[in-house]
């Protein structure tokens, strides 16, 4: 820790010096008598101050939690130096991590004594966070000498996106020949009744529909729809976001992606993730809980990376976009590249739905009349963009900050049922 004479002490000494010279010049010894306590104070502070040797340990009671939960950070201090000091401790932390109490904490730490301070740490946003080290400012009891430094290590904290339970998901148009929970269009072994047809050699006797057989006079068997899984690709747009002091569209998008990944993997779908923006990251499709953890870890690392680079479908490896996959594009639709990407995917025949994370909740109109008019124009323009996507057969679910994702997805399913002929065209 570096020792500094406080600016206050230098000011006191300058004041006392000026008073002494003033006393000499004016022949008024009272000035010197007034200055004496100031000089005694400075001298005593310099003589009596002992450098503290502080040791700091930082500990968190938990290192993984959900958004909105809090952890307790304990800072343990020890003074191995010669004298008592007044210590102000400020715990450094990454952005989007709120601390209580706010500001530094001030304590008296005598020589050879330990002390503990606790802070409540609350992540305001999902992601990888860290607390520590601490910035320490120690002063002798008179405040003449200051010692400052950073002590202690850094402790990581991971905040996972808030859980949002989804009762309804987007129903995929095509399935994959793996066991799952979607009723497939093909016919095979399953529970859901599909049709009745004449008996062929090789059909099982237990599939015979006796009532239909009696009516038609020829053996008839039941056909069923099997339950298959589907491939789902979560496409996260990280080109641009709208942000205010309470959060941004990327925060909402990651929460939506996490909820969708959890729900799709729970219904035994294969889920892939593509982080499509200034930087490009992807996770190939896979099943199960391990894939969920991989996706959550990848989402925690998502961030807006500014770039002029043009990106299109060709930049995404084919194995990440399996044919017949349901692509859920989660985007604020702010960047022309994401709009072009979405339109391109649709032209290539992908089953595509856009979950629009509305930026309107994060941006307020400007103060001037022109800016207010521009804001209204922006809302209308965004509706026009939505209409253009829907004219391409792409369902758009608009999701606001405080809303549930479920009702928005329900609306998309209704659109997809009515738009199905256009999708197949």
């Amino acid at each position, binding site marked *: 820790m570096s*020792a*500094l*004479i*406080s*600016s206050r002490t*230098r000011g006191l*000494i*300058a004041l006392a*010096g000026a008073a*002494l*010279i003033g006393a*000499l*010049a004016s022949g008024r010894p009272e000035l010197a008598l007034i200055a004496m306590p100031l000089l005694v104070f400075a001298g005593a502070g310099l003589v009596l101050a002992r450098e503290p040797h502080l040791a700091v340990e930082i500990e968190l009671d938990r290192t993984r939690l959900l958004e909105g939960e809090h952890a307790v950070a304990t800072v343990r201090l020890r003074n191995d130096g010669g004298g008592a000091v007044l210590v102000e401790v*400020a715990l450094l932390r990454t952005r989007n991590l709120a601390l209580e109490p706010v500001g*530094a904490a001030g304590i008296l730490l005598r020589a050879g004594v330990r002390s503990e301070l606790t802070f409540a740490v609350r992540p305001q946003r999902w992601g990888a966070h860290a607390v520590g080290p601490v910035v320490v400012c120690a002063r002798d009891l008179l405040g003449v000498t*200051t010692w*400052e430094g950073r002590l202690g290590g850094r402790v990581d904290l991971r905040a996972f996106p808030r859980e949002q339970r989804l009762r309804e998901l987007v129903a995929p148009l095509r399935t994959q020949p793996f066991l799952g929970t979607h009723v497939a269009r093909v016919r095979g072994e399953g529970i859901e009744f599909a049709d009745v047809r004449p008996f062929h050699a090789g059909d099982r006797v237990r599939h015979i529909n006796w009532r239909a057989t009696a009516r038609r006079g020829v053996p008839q068997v039941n056909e069923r729809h099997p339950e298959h899984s589907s491939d789902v690709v979560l496409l996260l747009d990280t080109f*641009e976001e*709208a*942000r*205010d*002091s309470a959060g*941004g569209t990327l925060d909402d998008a990651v929460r939506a992606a996490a909820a969708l990944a959890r729900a799709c993997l729970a219904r035994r779908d294969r889920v892939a993730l593509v982080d499509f923006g200034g930087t490009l990251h992807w996770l190939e499709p896979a099943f199960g809980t391990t894939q969920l953890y991989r996706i959550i870890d990848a989402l925690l690392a998502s961030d807006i990376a500014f770039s002029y680079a043009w990106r299109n479908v060709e930049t995404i490896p084919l194995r990440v976009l399996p044919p017949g996959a349901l692509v859920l594009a989660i985007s*604020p639709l*702010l*960047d022309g590249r994401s709009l072009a990407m979405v339109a391109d995917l649709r032209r290539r025949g992908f089953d595509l739905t856009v979950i629009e994370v509305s*930026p309107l909740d*994060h*941006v307020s109109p*400007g103060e001037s*009349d*022109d*800016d207010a*008019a*521009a*804001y*209204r*124009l*922006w809302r*209308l*323009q965004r*509706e*026009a963009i939505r*209409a*253009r996507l829907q*004219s391409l057969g792409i369902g758009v679910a608009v999701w606001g900050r405080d809303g549930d994702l479920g009702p928005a997805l329900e609306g998309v399913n209704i659109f997809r049922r009515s738009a199905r002929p256009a999708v197949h065209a």
Partner: protein
Amino acid sequence: MRLLAEIALVVLAAIGVAGCASLLLGTPPTRRRRARAPAPPRPDQLVALERLTTSARTSAVHVHAYLRPVLVEITSGRLAAHGHNLDRMPELTGRALLGDRLWDIVRPGRPFPEDRRGPGVTPQELRAMLEVLERL
């Protein structure tokens, strides 16, 4: 003489005191300044429209080159939802649905303005057009 001597002594004392005080070591202590978080940037889409609405006041060229494409995109979409096609809309229908000012800007085949410095769109006109579009 005595006065001069005393003045000299006082001056010497002042120099001595100042010299000793300047020997005081240390850089100024770091001041805890609360860093103000910068205001979050506004989306480029919105910033472009804010510039557009300001520049559209200035001249007919700005209206035709910048404001018109945005209004055409919005108007086409909203008319299409009601089964109308802006590109094939007769003038009478267009004026009835959109009003004279908006129709004059978005009508198909609108030529580039001859008078480049002609008037742009006033804020009142723009607000009126927005109200028409929002009602569609």
